[in-house]
């Protein structure tokens, strides 16, 4: 005979303001199996918890229902309280009468009825609860960082400093990310490379860090504490161990006209190349698509000049499989494609993106820092910056969000131009200038007040390249007039978006992404560096537009969370996992196909069917892999598969109780 206790919480006025607690209490008393009902202003308080404990002991309760907030908030609290008594903590159910009831309703009567229905459902469920016992799973004390930008590098350094081994997987030939491409950085105008490269070198020589560049994630298996991940190290065609980084190879390479990715296509690179001087590792790669040797079989000049004999045309992709306790996604951002923005005449050589501008003003860049028009190599007399290109716009080609960093870097660009070439006229078209941040507004005001940058509130409608100059058609929204003006160089503050490959990464790790492909946090405020998938963490601009200080601060927070996990020797596992009744299973494989964690396999098993023994193909659940998602349960037609803690019977009982 069930003896169920029901505890109704007021949550101050959070619940009691909209729900008639007395009525819920009164109704609960008449539910089958209910032996004890109590209410309290704050059930989660220490007094509330001891009240629950006391009632369990005194009334010898066999199951309890807490009608309060979401189980995400306090289920653990109350399970712990139950565990302090003789009751199994899984003989407890929470009825969410706050988030799902009082907070979303205004009408007291309706809310009270709903609170009663939810409580009723939880009581009906508890009738079918069974004691469950959590297990343990091991923690591999090693982390994997995907993406070697500033986010990935600083996160890896923090984790490595705490004594754990970290591997960085970077898809390009060098770590560094977007920050390596930048010239100066706002709001301090310090040289980007000067502050980044020491970090890169730290990572390179840290005894706990392994860097895999020119590499990708091939596959992911496992779960928090125990991921098995295969990394594909793409064939570099250069032996990392032998190469001394002398650069003789790329000096000799006859293929010299490949638009360089690092210089955003403004500068050319060779077929065998190192993306930039401070690249880490300083080992070139052969771009097999353009290399003559790979295309025609002839050439091999690099091989002849390489003194340590490091060139290896036969090298193949290498697959490395390693176990990790935690994974950090730090894949960053990239400017959007401007194909659909014809009005800005981006096809003109003198209309460039802000990232291209960064390369152009960089002393190590394609023009050696010389500010010129690409078309005629002349110094421009006037430069126009256009902000919000592709940001804050509901059109399909654009992003609805604010890219956040563009106002600041445009002010930076404008100021740098004025500083070096005071005679150049600088105009900035903007929708509004957003400068929240330490020393940000001061920075922007300096551009306007000290450097005389001309800010025009308005949008550019059309740009036409007529050879020796560019025509701009725009509106000045403050003076409410049309502007037609000439300029020599246009810089587009292009919206940023997550890299495309993040979808694939997120898919492999079952981490969620939002409609803009930014990674989703487990909780926007309280779990800002965790993905909703246990053991998968986030760092940097893959979460949303971020500048460098924010990226580095966030990466530190990510590292702290990862260290917290890796410091544990084992994890307590969730006992609410799939449960098979082999007698009913016909081995159809439906469940195996839907299991996102690969937790189901098949075995020929002897089944005793009422004395008739037969060997049958039966589903087998790997208890360590199963995350209790329930996908298999709903897929199994005959109900052979069930979920502990959320069994078909329990769910049906809840639905029935609600519909009663």
């Amino acid at each position, binding site marked *: 005979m069930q003896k169920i206790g029901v505890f109704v919480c007021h949550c101050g006025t959070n619940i009691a303001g909209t729900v008639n607690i007395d009525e819920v209490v009164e109704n609960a008393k008449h539910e089958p199996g209910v032996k004890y009902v109590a209410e309290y202003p704050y059930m989660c308080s220490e007094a509330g918890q001891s009240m629950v404990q006391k009632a369990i002991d005194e009334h010898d309760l066999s199951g309890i229902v807490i009608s309060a907030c979401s189980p995400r908030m306090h289920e653990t609290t109350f399970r712990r309280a139950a565990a302090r008594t003789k009751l199994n903590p899984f003989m407890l159910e929470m009825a969410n009468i706050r988030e799902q009831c009082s907070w979303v309703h205004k009408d007291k009567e309706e809310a009270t009825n709903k609170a009663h229905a939810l409580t009723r459902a939880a009581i009906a469920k508890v009738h079918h609860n069974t004691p469950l016992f959590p297990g343990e799973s091991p923690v591999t004390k090693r982390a994997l960082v995907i993406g070697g930008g500033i986010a990935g590098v600083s996160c890896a350094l923090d984790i490595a400093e705490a004594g754990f081994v970290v591997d960085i997987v970077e898809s390009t030939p060098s770590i560094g990310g977007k920050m390596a491409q930048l010239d100066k950085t706002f709001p301090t105008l310090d040289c980007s490379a000067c502050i980044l490269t020491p970090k890169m070198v730290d990572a390179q020589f840290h005894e706990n860090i392994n860097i895999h560049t020119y590499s990708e994630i091939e596959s992911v298996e496992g779960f928090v504490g125990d991921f098995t991940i295969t990394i594909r190290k793409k064939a570099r065609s250069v032996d990392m161990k032998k190469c001394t980084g002398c650069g003789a190879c790329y000096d000799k390479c006859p293929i010299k006209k490949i638009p360089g990715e690092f210089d955003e296509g403004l500068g050319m690179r060779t077929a065998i190349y190192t993306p930039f001087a401070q690249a880490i590792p300083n080992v070139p790669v052969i771009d097999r698509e353009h290399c003559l040797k790979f295309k025609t079989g002839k050439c091999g000049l690099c091989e002849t000049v390489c003194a340590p004999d490091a060139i290896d045309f036969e090298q193949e992709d290498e697959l490395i499989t390693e176990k990790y306790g935690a994974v950090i996604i730090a894949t960053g951002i990239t400017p959007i494609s401007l194909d659909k923005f014809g009005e800005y005449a981006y096809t003109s050589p003198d209309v460039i993106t802000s990232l291209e501008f960064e390369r152009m003003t960089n002393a190590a860049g394609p023009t050696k820092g010389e500010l010129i028009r690409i078309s005629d190599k002349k110094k421009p007399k006037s430069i126009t910056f256009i902000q919000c290109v592709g940001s804050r716009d509901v059109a399909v080609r654009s992003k609805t969000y604010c890219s956040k960093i563009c106002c600041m870097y445009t002010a930076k660009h404008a100021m740098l131009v004025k500083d070096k070439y005071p005679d150049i006229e600088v105009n900035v078209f903007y929708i509004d200038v957003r400068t929240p941040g330490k020393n940000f507004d001061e920075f922007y005001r300096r551009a306007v007040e000290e450097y005389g940058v001309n800010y025009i509130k308005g949008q550019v409608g059309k740009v036409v390249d007529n050879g020796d100059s560019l025509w701009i058609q725009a509106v000045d929204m403050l003076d409410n007039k049309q502007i037609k003006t000439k300029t020599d160089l246009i810089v587009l503050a292009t919206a940023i978006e997550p890299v495309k490959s993040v979808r694939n990464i997120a898919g492999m790790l079952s981490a969620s992404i939002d409609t803009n492909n930014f990674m989703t946090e487990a909780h926007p405020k309280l779990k800002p560096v965790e993905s909703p998938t246990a053991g998968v963490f986030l760092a940097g601009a893959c979460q949303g537009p971020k500048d460098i200080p924010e990226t580095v601060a966030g990466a530190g927070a990510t590292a702290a969370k990862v260290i917290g996990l890796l410091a544990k020797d084992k994890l307590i596992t969730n006992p609410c996992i799939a449960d098979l009744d082999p007698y009913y299973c*016909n081995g159809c494989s439906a469940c195996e196909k839907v299991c996102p964690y690969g937790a189901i396999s098949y075995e020929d098993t002897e089944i005793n069917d009422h004395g008739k023994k037969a060997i049958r193909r039966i589903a087998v659940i790997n208890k360590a892999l199963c995350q209790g998602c329930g996908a298999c349960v709903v897929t199994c*037609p*005959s109900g052979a598969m069930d979920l502990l803690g959320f069994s078909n019977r329990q769910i049906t009982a809840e639905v029935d109780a609600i519909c009663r």
Partner: protein
Amino acid sequence: MIQKQMQERAKQMLSLGEVTCVLGWKKGDFSTNPQPAVFESEKDLEDLVYDKYCAANLSKYLVELTKKEGKVLVFLKPCDTYSFNQLLKENLIKKERSYIIGIGCEGNMQVDDDMQEIGLLEKCQTCTKTAHMVFDELIGEELTVRQGDDPFEGVLNLEQMSSDERYGFWREELSKCIRCNACRNVCPACNCRKCVFDNNKYDTAQKVNASSFEEQMFHIIRAYHVAGRCTDCGECSRVCPQLIDLHLLNRKFIKDINEFYGEFQAGADTDTPSPLTDFNIDTDPEPGSVHKRG
């Protein structure tokens, strides 16, 4: 004659010991209702028939037959091979224990209570399955001309009804059901070890029995269970003694699956994942479009 050829070939294989038994059809009480049958000797095979009344899909019988040692020779019409593939995909029959002889089909006839022919079976009128999807050898001509009625016409008509009309239609149809379970027993997709309507593990059976409209619950649950696996073999409608157009329910699912996820034919092969048990983040429409359709 094709029947003769089938008998000869089957006898040959039996005598050579290449197969241990033969699954085909034999004459029933009337000439118009041949029954599925297993033949174990050359003499038995004299009774094997194959004519325009041999509509029964033999694939499901292989579930039990291929559990035993030995090899079964089975005769499959083009449409039956889809069920074979689907069962293979669900690991319910053993390919290596079967030998498929694909046989040509010109469409099967429907008879009324007085055993009078009243035209092609619905499933044959709307048949789109002209080729064998799997076979070891073929006997007889493949029929290329089909009646060609649009299989989805009935579903379209239902979709055009108001929801009240549609509800009325199904209430009327399903209230004729006598729960004889013939549809489920013949259905190759209904291959559960113990159907939810027969097992006590969950309260489905009891709950359905307690419902004032038990038949409706049964059919809706069954339609969901076979969705994405139903090859549209049409056997449920053919065997229903109450002449309920059960295929309409399944075809609605087939039509929706085609529209949501792109053309999909269960049983066309054994490796294409069923859209309902496969998730593709880039191409799957849910929940947006499902929501839009209301």
